[in-house]
């Protein structure tokens, strides 16, 4: 049986996570979605906003979902699994976990991927991060949590764009694009949001290239990213040696690894890692598009991203191919919601 997808919704305090979920979960296609939220701040209110899924909402008891209450998360997911298998709830299609505003999403991925039972029944398919268009710049400047959340994201939703001035929104979107070039950045307009926009498979999931120096002014102080490719197929076993060593030595500073790696087979290997935690790499049967080059993005903190490139270059004989930086291409920002 296929694993049930888990979507992690994260974002800084007051950045509109619950509002975003509220918009999406009211749709009929989401009736088989369970939502896990936590008791932190005004969650009582948040919980009522998610009333459509009320009976499936398991309130986690101990505040932060991540670190302190991983067992609760395990318990909550096991309980849902139990109910589903007993047939006491209609088919469970998806679980949404809303984190606290200060949460680091990595421990959630860790929990789902490593728990002896959960790993066979659930998989994390998306990390969605909301960023407040009005206060986002402030959050990114002052809070490493906010930077980690953006780095971990597969999709970034800019909220409150209707009350922010367009120039601020544009600057923030560009900064988010350079901070995490692998994420799709969308603006959420007031009004309804299609569930497919949030959960559905979309375009732009594979990494794009970023301007190397043009966006430097937008970089968060000690966080940088680099996109690279290889001049040929990479030996997967050798890459595994290199990457597992890197994640062991520098895991906390490697905020994100994402991309497609050409290993000389019919399709690429999908890489997706957040800090120490790597999604089980998928070996695809074919390439998703016509571009058959490796495309990998590294987002690092405290480690200049160029050092990654230098290290891969030093390991070129082991890897069987030489890395090089990808050329410039600006990340598109899509609009969602009422513009559709």
């Amino acid at each position, binding site marked *: 049986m296929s694993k049930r997808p888990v979507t992690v919704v994260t974002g800084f305090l007051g950045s509109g996570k619950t509002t975003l979920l509220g918009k999406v979960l009211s749709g009929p296609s989401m009736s088989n979605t369970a939502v896990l939220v936590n008791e932190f701040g005004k969650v009582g209110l948040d919980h009522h906003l998610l009333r459509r899924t009320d009976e499936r909402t398991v309130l986690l008891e101990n505040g932060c979902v991540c670190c302190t209450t991983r067992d609760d998360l395990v318990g909550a997911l096991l309980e849902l699994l139990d109910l589903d298998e007993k047939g006491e709830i209609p088919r469970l299609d998806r679980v949404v976990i809303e984190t606290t505003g200060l949460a680091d999403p990595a421990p959630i991925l860790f929990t789902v991927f*490593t728990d*002896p039972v959960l*790993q066979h029944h659930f998989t994390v398919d998306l990390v969605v991060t909301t960023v407040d268009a009005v206060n986002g710049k402030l959050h990114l400047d002052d809070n490493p949590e906010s930077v980690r959340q953006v780095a971990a994201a597969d999709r970034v939703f800019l909220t409150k764009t209707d009350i922010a001035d367009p120039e601020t929104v544009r600057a923030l979107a560009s900064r988010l694009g350079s901070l995490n070039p692998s994420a799709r950045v969308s603006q959420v307009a007031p009004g309804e949001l299609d569930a497919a926009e949030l959960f559905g498979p979309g375009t732009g999931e594979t990494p794009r290239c970023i301007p190397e120096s043009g966006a430097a002014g937008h970089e968060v102080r000690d966080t940088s990213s680099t996109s690279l490719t290889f001049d040929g197929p990479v*030996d*997967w*076993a*050798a890459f*595994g*040696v*290199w990457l*597992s*060593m*890197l994640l*062991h*030595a*520098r895991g906390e500073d490697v905020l994100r690894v994402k991309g497609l790696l050409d290993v000389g087979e019919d399709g690429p290997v999908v890489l997706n890692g957040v800090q120490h935690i*790597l999604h*089980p*790499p998928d*070996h695809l049967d074919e390439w998703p598009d016509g571009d058959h080059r490796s495309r990998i993005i590294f987002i690092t903190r405290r*480690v200049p991203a160029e*050092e*990654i490139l*230098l*290290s891969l*270059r*030093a*390991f*070129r*004989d*082991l890897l*069987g191919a030489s890395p090089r930086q990808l050329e410039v291409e600006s990340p598109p920002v899509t609009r969602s919601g009422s513009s559709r």
Partner: protein
Amino acid sequence: MCVLCGEFVAQAHWTDRHIEDRARSSETEIGDYHRDRRRDRILRASLANRVLAHYGLRLDDWSGSRYVLRDRKGGSELVQDLGSLWPVAGRMAGRTPDPLDPALMEAMSAAERPHQR
């Protein structure tokens, strides 16, 4: 579960996933699986050794179930996979193997073989 030592292995490390996943798909013959797996382990150990040599360590496949990591003073430890290799290697070598370490990068560049694989 490891039949030799009874240790419960809860999860395949991500570097082992390729082979393990292929084993679960019905197209693979069990004989092919064992051959692929064995070959993969020997190859991986030889690749890791090119890094570990810099730290005075050596890794060998140990009857297809574990790897044994040895130093030059006769010390040895068993490791399960690449995930548990690096912490043990760090302990035995007295420093954490780091691909961003300039000395290791230099050694890897210098040790290039004349012929590409």
